[in-house]
């Protein structure tokens, strides 16, 4: 079978096979479908190139004011005849008839004479023997019998009657209307004849056009970036990590000082870090923690460490402040922790930089953990998230030593791009906080993973909240 047609389509095709050039209304009549069903069917069939729509003009004839009068009382000549019939001797004076018929008098006389119904002798009208129904009368009757009282020009067979009535003022009105009609295309004729010769009618009426397009419904959904965050979180959990959550607003102490970033370090300047205006923490850490951290700074960096500087509130520049505080508070012998959260950098917003983005960070605490383990965990993470090629390069972070960065291969761009940074916490970080076991740490921006996954070149796209984009991203990739 070439094409499955909807029952609506079939009915329309069959009707057209019998008679072309039908209007939707005529089709509705013939097929007994509702006008809406017909219109829908016409659209489908047009889409399949089985029918064509053509515009044509149709003329309609209806009765004018005198025509309506005539349909009720008869034509003037008939009225004259009827009047004469009612009189003794079947005759009357001209003046009497004039009074009776008023404006219609001359028309009545002229037509009755023409029909051979009357004779006039010395100002007197005499009825003759024959006065049968005329074709004019028949036409008026036909039109009047319609509801509404309109007839298509094509339907009028007696063109003489039409012409004669048209000559008489106000008896008929002729209107023309533009009409849409439907015609089968060649393909349509073929399909329609096949379809009508099909014997499996029962099957056909049940089958529908499974190839026809349908509208898309945009399902309510989570934000694509949230999906990536969830995926990253699941991977960490599957690798045995427990999630930490911490505040976005932090004291400089935990964001910088505890991580061995000296107070005059360029990263702490306002052009890189968001300081909260006129906000200082009341209490940043225990007196012992403060004493030991400040001593570590002064010993290596040779400057006067200031508590007030450490109290200044910042929007965290990394989630490491949350991790390091958890390590200092809990003194784990062994642990696997991770956190995912917003971090902030005072940057100019561009296609590659946002002022606020999501960072994931993991730490492993353990007596025997090594740099190679740290590399192995990265590879495992990348494998799980679908990144096939990764390699490691040395780099520098103030609070880790040794430090590495991982480079991953972006298949789409055909080049290596930086992803996570990692390292082992420096003794200048761990010792003052009484963390006795080595700590492996790594982290990086989740938006980068999202950009890789969604093929984005502009990171801002993730936060534009354009429905067109949000709806276009497949939920599973």
């Amino acid at each position: 079978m070439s094409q499955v047609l909807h029952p609506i389509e079939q009915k329309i095709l069959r009707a057209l096979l019998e008679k072309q050039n039908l209007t939707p209304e005529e089709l509705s009549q013939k097929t007994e479908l509702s006008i809406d069903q017909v219109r829908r069917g016409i659209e489908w069939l047009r889409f399949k190139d089985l029918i064509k729509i053509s515009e044509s003009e149709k003329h309609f004839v209806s009765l004018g004011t005198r025509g309506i009068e005539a349909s009720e009382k008869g034509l003037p000549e008939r009225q004259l005849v009827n009047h004469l019939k009612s009189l003794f001797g079947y005759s009357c004076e001209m003046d009497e008839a004039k009074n009776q018929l008023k404006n219609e008098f001359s028309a009545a006389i002229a037509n009755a004479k023409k029909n051979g119904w009357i004779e006039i002798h010395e100002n007197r009208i005499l009825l003759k023997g024959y006065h049968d129904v005329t074709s004019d009368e028949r036409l008026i009757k036909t039109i009047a019998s319609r509801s509404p009282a309109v007839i298509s020009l094509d339907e009028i067979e007696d063109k003489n009657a039409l012409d004669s009535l048209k000559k008489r003022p106000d008896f008929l009105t002729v209107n023309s209307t533009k009409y849409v009609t439907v015609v089968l295309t060649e393909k349509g004729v073929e399909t329609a004849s096949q379809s009508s010769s099909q014997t499996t009618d029962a099957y056909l009426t049940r089958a529908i056009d499974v190839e026809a397009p349908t509208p898309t419904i945009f399902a309510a959904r989570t934000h694509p970036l949230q999906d990536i965050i969830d995926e990253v979180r699941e991977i960490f959990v599957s690798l045995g990590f427990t999630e930490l959550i911490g505040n976005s607003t932090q004291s400089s102490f935990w964001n910088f000082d505890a991580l061995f970033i000296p107070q005059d370090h360029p990263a702490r300047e306002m052009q890189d870090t968001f300081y909260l205006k006129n906000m200082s923490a009341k209490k940043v850490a225990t007196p012992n923690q403060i004493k030991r951290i400040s001593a570590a700074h002064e010993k290596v960096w040779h400057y006067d460490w200031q508590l007030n500087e450490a109290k200044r509130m910042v929007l965290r520049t990394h989630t490491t402040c949350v991790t390091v505080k958890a390590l200092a508070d809990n003194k784990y012998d062994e642990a696997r922790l991770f956190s995912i959260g917003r971090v902030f950098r005072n940057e100019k917003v561009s296609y590659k930089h946002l002022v606020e983005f999501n960072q994931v960070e993991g730490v492993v605490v353990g007596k025997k953990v090594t740099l190679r383990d740290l590399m192995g965990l990265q590879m495992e993470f990348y494998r799980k998230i679908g990144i096939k090629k990764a390699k490691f390069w040395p780099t520098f972070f103030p609070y880790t030593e040794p430090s590495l960065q991982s480079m991953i291969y972006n298949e789409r761009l055909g080049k290596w791009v930086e992803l996570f940074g990692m390292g082992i916490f420096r003794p200048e970080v761990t010792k003052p906080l009484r963390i006795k076991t080595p700590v492996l740490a790594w982290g990086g921006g989740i938006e980068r993973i999202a950009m890789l996954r969604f093929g984005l070149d502009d990171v801002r796209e993730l936060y534009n909240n354009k429905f067109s984009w949000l709806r276009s991203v497949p939920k599973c990739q």
Partner: protein
Amino acid sequence: MPVVTLYFNRLQKILERKVSIEKIVSALPLLGLDIEEETKDHVNVEYSPNRPDFSTDYGIANGLQGLLGIKLGMIKLKIKKGKDAIKADSSITKVRPYITAIEARNGILDDETIRQFIAMQEDLHNGIGRRRKKVSIGIHDLDKIQFPLMYNAVSRTHRFVPIGSEDEMTISEVLQKTETGTMYMNLLEGSEMVPAIIDSVGNTISFPPIINSKLTEVTTKSQNLLVEVTATDKNAAEDTLAVVAYILQSAGFQLYSVRISGANNSTPSLDARNMLLDPTLVTETLGLDVSPSVIIKSIRKSRLDGKIKGQRIICTIPRYRADIFGPIDLVEEVALGHCVQNLDPTIPESSSAGQKNRITVLLDAARSTMIGLGYSEVMNFGLVGKHTQYDLTSRDASRMISVADSKSQEHHILRDALLPGLIDVLSKNIHEPYPQKIFEIGTIFDKDNPIKEAIHLGCVSAHGDVSYSEIKSILHSFLKTGFNLPCKTTADVNPVFVEGRTANVLVNEEEIGLIGEVAPAIIDNFRLRIPVAGFEIKLSGLIFD
């Protein structure tokens, strides 16, 4: 991060070995250098500011020689005893107390070498010099100077001809009229007297930390140089001097000491130092079972020296490697010398089961309940603009939390509510079909000390027939389906919503948020052409503590 331009033909000459461009480019990242841009004849690399010895192609060439096995071990600073002297006057103590210097003689300078030196000087100023506040460097044509030099404080009416100018200027004029003067004048604020280096015939050769004099300008004709470093910290001054000396020696200059004295200043030694390294620290940290002799070989590839002493290794570290604080930094040098790409990843065993935070689990539940109600999630920033957050929404800005010096007007305050951002999202999507139904779960900030951070749920619905009842039904269904919490709404007034169609939301008699039809004036402000209703409730303290 600072950037160095490396021309391949020049680098190949400095390497003293024909190394292919391909090999150079693949080796650079293994020194910790990030390739920023690569062309046919040069490559731009970023280096980390803790490695100022990589601030020129000479320093990077030394690193490459080690890594590629061309030359191993430490490069010793060979400093001959010189005759010249600088004396610091006690007047300088309160202004910029420390000076140190060295001479570099018999070198050849071409345009590219001078360009490399100038770039190095700027990088050192910005990094270790903390934008010249802590340390600044002056490099001079030695043959234009009459020794001994005096380092002292002068008044702001002191006159000299600064580099880049033809005319004599006062110190005040220099600070106002020259580019570096205006850039760094703040460093001298609060002191009437400023530092100057003046030679024995009264010529000013430098006005640190701002500008050198025209007299001693270095050109391609200069053969002998004086490097002076002034600082607020003696150690940092000598570390910086060591880096410059190292680069000049690598560029073919011979180094001569300059005698420094006066006001707590002294002649720098710039000697290498020794540090003990326990081989077990290397094997335990890297997870690499290697012998002490292999460790020494890797150390030497990183251009340090090492020899075995009993159970340990004595490492020798040149003065220009001030980034090495302790043994763990030597472990990294071993890793680099061994080459990071020769380390095979291993997976540590773990007996622990992982776990999501309980808050995450509950927020996920909240999210999926909203999805079930037909609402889609959007994500906005926490750091937002005042215009949207307060002005366009007629909200009270008295408890606004601002950040200092933001580079963007769209990100300078912390949001205290989610609804403004949600309405803003609708305004970005006016060409999309309605109904539009969205929600956000995010952190909001309340001004207090400490700042209170809470997680809120915000939700808006926009379409022609939207109503208070519809959004209340969503709120009620969310709380019921998600958390089996009953809620009440009591009439209230709120500038965001239409009066008479807004309420407070209460759960167990506690106020948790607000709900209503958004006021027409706000709809107008956001150029929306359709009615909006919404609610915002706190989740912190409601579904978790």
